[in-house]
């Protein structure tokens, strides 16, 4: 069920980000969501894209250091309290969120949230049982 996230190692040097965005653009891949974690020396660029395998291949052939991480994606109504509900469920079951990021789509009244937890299956099971809709790879492509 989990969604594939592309993680890219980026040294804090000029031109590094251009290589990444260009190779994704040239491969005709759409970015659905992104987040960046940074330290003084390097950053980790995380992307949700339409075709993760193809994106990985394109990035690697332009010399990027890439890995695919599985993350949990949920779809929630774009209204106050939605995210709070998800976070509360996870807190209740003592599931730690390492990081998360969200994106909304204009046409539909839903927001998507990407969650990184230690155990995807466990988190997905709990969220589903509590009425939260999970995102699939197909959903990402269809957005």
């Amino acid at each position, binding site marked *: 069920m989990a969604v594939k*996230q592309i*993680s890219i*190692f980026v*040294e804090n040097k000029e031109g590094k980000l251009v290589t990444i965005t260009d190779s994704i653009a040239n491969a005709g891949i759409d970015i659905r969501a992104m987040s960046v*974690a*940074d*330290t003084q*020396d*390097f*950053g*980790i660029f*995380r992307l949700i894209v339409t075709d993760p395998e193809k994106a990985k291949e394109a990035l690697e052939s332009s*010399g*990027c*250091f890439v*890995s695919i*991480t599985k993350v949990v994606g949920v779809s929630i109504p774009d209204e106050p309290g939605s995210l709070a509900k998800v976070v509360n469920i996870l807190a209740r079951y003592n599931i730690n969120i*390492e*990081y998360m990021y969200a994106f909304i789509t204009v046409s539909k009244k839903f927001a998507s949230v990407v969650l*990184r937890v230690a155990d995807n299956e466990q988190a997905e099971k709990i969220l589903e049982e509590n009425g939260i809709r999970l995102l699939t790879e197909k959903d990402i492509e269809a957005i």
Partner: protein
Amino acid sequence: MYRKYYQPELETMPVEEIKKLQDEKLVKQVKHIYDNVKYYRDLMDKSGVKPEDIKGVDDLHKLPFLKKDDLREAYPYGLLAVDMKDCVRIHSTSGTTGKRVVAFYTQKDVDMWEECCARAIVAAGGNEDDVCQVCYGYGLFTGGAGLHGGSHKVGCLTLPMSSGNTQRQIQFMMDLDATILCCTPSYAAYLGESLKEGGYKPEDNKLKAGIFGAEPWTEEMRRDIEKALGIKAYDIYGLTELSGPGVAFECESQSGMHINEDHFIAEIIDPNTGEVLPLGTKGELVFTSLDKEAFPMLRYRTRDICVLTREKCSCGRTFLKMTKPMGRSDDMMIIRGVNVFPSQIETVLLNNGYAPNYQIILDRVNNSDTFDINVEMSTEDFSDTPKVITTKEKKLQDAMKAMLGINPKIHLVAPKTIPRSEGKAVRLIDNRRRYGITT
């Protein structure tokens, strides 16, 4: 025909006979030098030594040392001992530590050198049915020419690849069933990585042995290369000043390198006092050539720190053995007042599961040295959270501190991002030189 030695009568000569041979040759070599090289004559006259004072190896200590600075001062013809018309070739050092040194060779000098390399190849199991891939650089550098000549003498099919163009190296290695690989250890490690990336397993190639030298490497690196290529890795030692690779070579016991004592006398000295030290003591390696015509050397200080031993070797060779150089005064860095050798850094990396792909960057900020080491990660080291990487950096930093006594800043970087020179690895960027600081 299988051969265990290239020149058995010399390589297994009884120790007393080696001494006798050296005595005779040394007397001639000293006379040749004194008669033909003004620079040496002046040096000897200044020390009050006459050629007739040297009756054998026991008198060697009376002769003055020759240093790298002498070679630079005498550049280019000052140490040439024959007419230019008798010379057939030159080779040159890389000149990274100062002015280049140019060495001259007569045909006899080239033959002697190539025979030394042939001994090394046979000691690594090489014979006429072998295919010897030489990917040391060809040209002024002695690596390519030496092993190439040695391979010819043994009768191997020689692949004169020179350095670089890794894809072509791999193609020839696989298509022509190379059995012996000659290159720098860092390039051997790189070839191993590249083969793995190309989907080859160690057993897919026909290589059985590698002869690696021209830069410092560790036992850990040896094991890694042996595993990655599915071979036995042999060390080889030499200097352009003395001929090139093959001054000393490793045998099947892989426990130090046999010095070709019929051509060279080795001594160990205290680098500070110049005093000759007994066998088994660590010190600076000093060589005297015995057969060289064009560019003979008397008591040349190599600046390599090692130990000499003479023990019965399981291979049957009687030549004494030198350990792998433990450091080199030219390689030694002084960082925040502490002596640091690149070999120490390599050991820490290998012990902590990293490939020895690193670069040291030294600089000076607010009058104090900064010490950074970039280290390449492997795919398994990468994660989507920075904390995992910074934790690994901290762990490696602690291990470095324990080995070196000072704390470097470790930066894990993406694979294959540290520039590789496919001849000698460039491991150090010392920006302190901008401030006139040299160590």
